[in-house]
């Protein structure tokens, strides 16, 4: 009884997932069940398949075997409905050098179906510590600042599942703290965060899972 109740509570379920890149098997038989408000930390040495796993979870990469279920349905069959519930930030920031920070944020949001005003985008960027630099083309920003522009999307999106791939690289202490509070808020609101990182985020949540990939 308890078992079945817990089962329905897990909105993201991964069963017997396997991934093959080239002729190398990165992992196989991977199981994962995640309920709302859970933080999952992915660790493992370089090349163990952290990025591949996140790309499978967001649907960019079809798994070699097994499946990913969201609210009980395979994400392959859900298609755009699933994509609308996910925010994926890869280790490439997805920030256009030619566009200003505000344009980057507004356009990426509009393409995700959430149109936001200039003021809203400006406020989000200010919160990310980019006040005064909103109208600068992103190529004039530093590596860490560009990453902050990418992370600002987390402030304005209304997705349930966040997949973050090594997003702490080239961030300073203040920005890491900012990301931590963003994740904390998202978890409190019932969201799910899956992060590939080696850093300890020291979140205060009782729903914490660590998934260690090996080579």
């Amino acid at each position, binding site marked *: 009884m308890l078992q079945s109740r817990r089962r329905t509570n897990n909105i993201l379920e991964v069963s017997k997932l396997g991934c093959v890149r080239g002729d190398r098997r990165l992992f196989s038989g991977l199981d994962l069940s995640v309920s709302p408000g859970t933080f999952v930390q992915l660790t493992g040495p370089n090349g163990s398949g952290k990025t591949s796993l996140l790309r499978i979870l*967001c*649907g*960019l*990469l*079809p798994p070699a075997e097994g499946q990913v279920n969201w609210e009980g349905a395979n994400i392959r069959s859900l298609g*755009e*409905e699933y*994509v*609308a519930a*996910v925010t*994926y930030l*890869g*280790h*490439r*920031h*997805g*920030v*256009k*050098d*030619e*566009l200003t920070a505000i*344009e980057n944020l507004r*356009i*990426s949001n*509009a*393409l*995700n*179906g959430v149109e936001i005003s200039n003021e809203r985008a400006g406020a989000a960027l200010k919160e990310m510590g980019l006040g005064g630099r909103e109208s600068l*083309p992103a190529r004039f920003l530093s590596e860490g600042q560009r990453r902050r522009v990418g992370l600002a999307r987390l402030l304005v999106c209304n997705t349930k599942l966040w997949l973050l791939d090594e997003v702490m690289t080239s961030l300073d202490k203040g920005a890491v703290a900012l990301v931590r509070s963003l994740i904390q808020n998202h978890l409190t609101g019932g969201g799910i965060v899956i992060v590939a990182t080696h850093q300890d985020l020291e979140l205060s949540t009782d729903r914490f899972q660590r998934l260690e990939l090996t080579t």
Partner: protein
Amino acid sequence: MLRWIVWRDLMLAWRRRADMLSTVFFFVIVVSLFPLGIGPETQLLRTIAPGVVWVAALLASMLSLGRLFANDYQDGTLEQLLLTPQPLFLVVLGKTLAHWIIAEVPLVLVAPLVGVQFDLSRETLWILFASLLIGTPVLSLIGSVGAALTLGLRGGGVLISILVLPLYIPALIFGSGAVEASIMGATPAPHLYLLGAFAIVTLLFSPWAAASALRISLE
């Protein structure tokens, strides 16, 4: 949604105007080299004009195709585009439309001007303009499939020409055929109709083909 993608790509192109201009300059220079090389033999120039202008347009559009997805691929925005909650063929269609406006429309506009060097009549220049206007969307559409297939490959620039140029042949035949017919004093209408039909067929198939190719390239 479509308008956001088109607007985004137009803005990006505007911020990198040099890329856009290089395509037009290439076209103008290649077309102008022929009258300079051949000399003032108006009869010969008039005969080769349709082929020269159309081939130059094909080659010029090859220059810009490599950039269609490659820039977005490098900075990770293409991944984000794939993860937007809308059918991928719409994204591709938007980017292709933007590519047509950025890279092909300038060619269509300057073609009548460079055509003057070949001693074409005013009426023929109009037909040249019309044939390019109908035919260049084909170049962007088929090109988008080639660009998606060669994404992330080394030496993709050469490969894309080998893949795409043979598929351009129908557009080349009907397009230059229309101009030729006009020079001969015949009606160019059948050629233009066939060119239009070919454009519609490519419009129906290429966005889907390019979308599938993109998914494979980004795995």
